[in-house]
């Protein structure tokens, strides 16, 4: 048998051992936890609303939307986010930098 074939056999054996490693454990490891669809959907919706509020605020600050447009859009969004926003903001204080102000913007239209 040529040395190359021996090397090939060693490679195959090493691959088999590597593939078999999970079976050498005593017991089946726990399956990764998947949050229920509804929970994930709620979390995604919460993140989406937060992102939309941040975008809206940023668009307003950079002059892309008028005060009037801003006010007409921010309240419905804020209502939808009302029960979700505080939890997310508490998780990451830096998120609050672009969160909607607590009073309607008094920034004049240019």
């Amino acid at each position: 048998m040529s040395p190359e074939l021996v090397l090939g056999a060693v490679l195959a054996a090493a691959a088999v051992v590597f593939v078999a490693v999970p079976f050498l454990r005593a017991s089946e490891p726990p399956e990764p936890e998947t949050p229920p669809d509804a929970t994930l959907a709620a979390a995604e919706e919460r993140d989406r609303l937060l992102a939309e509020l941040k975008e809206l605020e940023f668009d307003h600050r950079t002059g892309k939307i008028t005060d009037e447009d801003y006010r007409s859009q921010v309240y419905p969004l804020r209502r939808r986010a009302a029960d979700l926003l505080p939890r997310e903001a508490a998780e990451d204080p830096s998120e609050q930098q672009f969160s909607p102000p607590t009073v309607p913007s008094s920034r004049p239209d240019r």
Partner: protein
Amino acid sequence: MPELGRAALIVCLGLAVYAVVAGAIAARERRQRLAESAQNAVVASFATALVASLVLLVGLVQNDFGLVYVADHTSRELPLGYTISAFWGGQEGSLLLWLLILTGFSAVAVLLARRSAPTLLPWSVPILAGVITFFSFMLVAVSSPFGTQAAPPDGAGLNPSLQNPYMLAHPPMLYLGFVGLTIPFAFAMGALIARRSDELWIVVTRRWTLIAWTFLGFGQLLGAHWAYVEVGWGGYFAWDPVENAALMPWLAATAFLHSVMIQEKRGMLKIWNVVLVIGAFALALFGTFLTRSGIISSIHSFTESSIGPWFLGFIGIVLAFSIALVVSRLPLLRSKTRLESPISREATFLYNNLLLVAFCLTILWGVLYPILTEALRGEPVTVGPPYYNFFLKAFGLPLLLLMGIGPLIAWRRASLRGLGRTFVWPAAVALATGAILLALGAGSSIPGLVGYTFCAFVMASIVLEFARGTRARHALGSSSWAGAFSSLIGRNRRRYGGYIVHASIVLLAIGVVGSSAYDTVAERELRPGQTMSVRNYDLRYVDNVTRRGANAQELRAIVEVSRGGERLGTLEPGKNRYFAEQQVSNEAAIRSDRLNGEDLFLVADQIDPDGTLFLKVLVKPLVNVIWIAGFVFLGGALIALWPDAREQRRLAVRYGGREALARA
């Protein structure tokens, strides 16, 4: 050593088949140890592909002409760099590179997803392994790089057009792009099979698509520069079917990278996004099929081979499987929200997507039409640059304009008053630029003038976006303007990296328009001592010279160049006659002006024994801006790719299971 290479490929095939079967059973029956074992098989397949690649590389470097592949693609006189690049210079070697990159990317994706997407991974592993199975089977049974023979005294050498430093980087870069699109496809399919209605697959695929898209985009620019300096016709993109094959998946991936933002921000376009991921992967496979089947004649393609039907079959299976899966999961993919206004950021993304996909399909039709016509009628038909250039203008100019409009419009809906306020400066800059260019004589090309006016509009909107964003951050309390600017980019790398990529597209457009709409071409027969003038250049043909290069005889015409009486130097266009390959190549001579980005491009079409030179001269304004655009593109893509710790934390909370969510 070929036995070791063959054995490594067989082990790779065995591991891939095991990962498909074990992975599918593990995902279906929720057996965690079996799932991990299948994942290990994918990781191990990379090790085996690496061993096979090293065997071929050693054979190439040692000039082991007992290996058919080495004898067919190298010679003793071939410089070492090109000997290494011969790894992907032929059919079998380039397939092995495909497999190496595929297993490498798959191994990295598996190891990363164990932490970031452990619930999605078991469903994606069989898909990844299925693709690995196909490529390893091709290398084991159909197109092996380890075929042996009685060693001839020397090899046939490498195609002269591949003997260029760009060949060391351009093909691997393209393969990284093509192959990288496998990962988004696998995770998208995994999510559909698992009936996942959440957006975890979007999180995983977005980054991988961005990686593949960056490699594909930069690889194409490297290829364009290779064509420009090596092929010797003065152009950089010829709408060759193989060039189109790389452009199509890039366009599909570009559309996905934009539309995925609408899904993330508004929960819309789910079906569209899945279709784009499938389309990008299928187009990458189709490009590989085009290059390798011998079905089309191209400077970039390999010779006719038997692998075409296999690829066609695999593409058919991929399309049938994925379309059936999408159709069966349609209820999961239906969006709950609708577009609020046709004048909004998401609407501009939608228009951008429609244009990108329409352009991609137009190119696909241009590639397919000659193939189908020849197959059905037996008549060869050519679809040439005029067809593609028409659609480039028809779809490219509106796309360019949308790149400037998009950032100026708010999400959800924008009022006319708001639009008027944000558009005034970019529109003024664009109109002023158009008027100045018209006064300078740029009206000789209307598409060129329109293109430059649009470029000015886009660039102004990008600058304005950075300026307004920086001002907003400064108003929020950043201590300095530099700090505000840096914080602006750092807090939204994807958006501002994207704007830098947009700026690179503007630079690309400036270079393409300048070098194609405003170029000058002249041809002349010259005897030694004679002169010719092209634009503001004066050229004097001095004489010709023959010398010996590393592996070729070099014949060069010596041409003195001056401008306005000032001598600029000497250029030496000519031809190389390669010893081993017995082929002649054109060697262009290029003088680049760093100040205005213009190139003087000389091609010695013919040098007669009596010294007569048939010289072709091209003056290409702004062509160097194209290559600068490549680096700007890379910079923007890297910023967009840079990990964002805040986003990762948020995603970990979102997808990290009940405990993490409970903490949130």
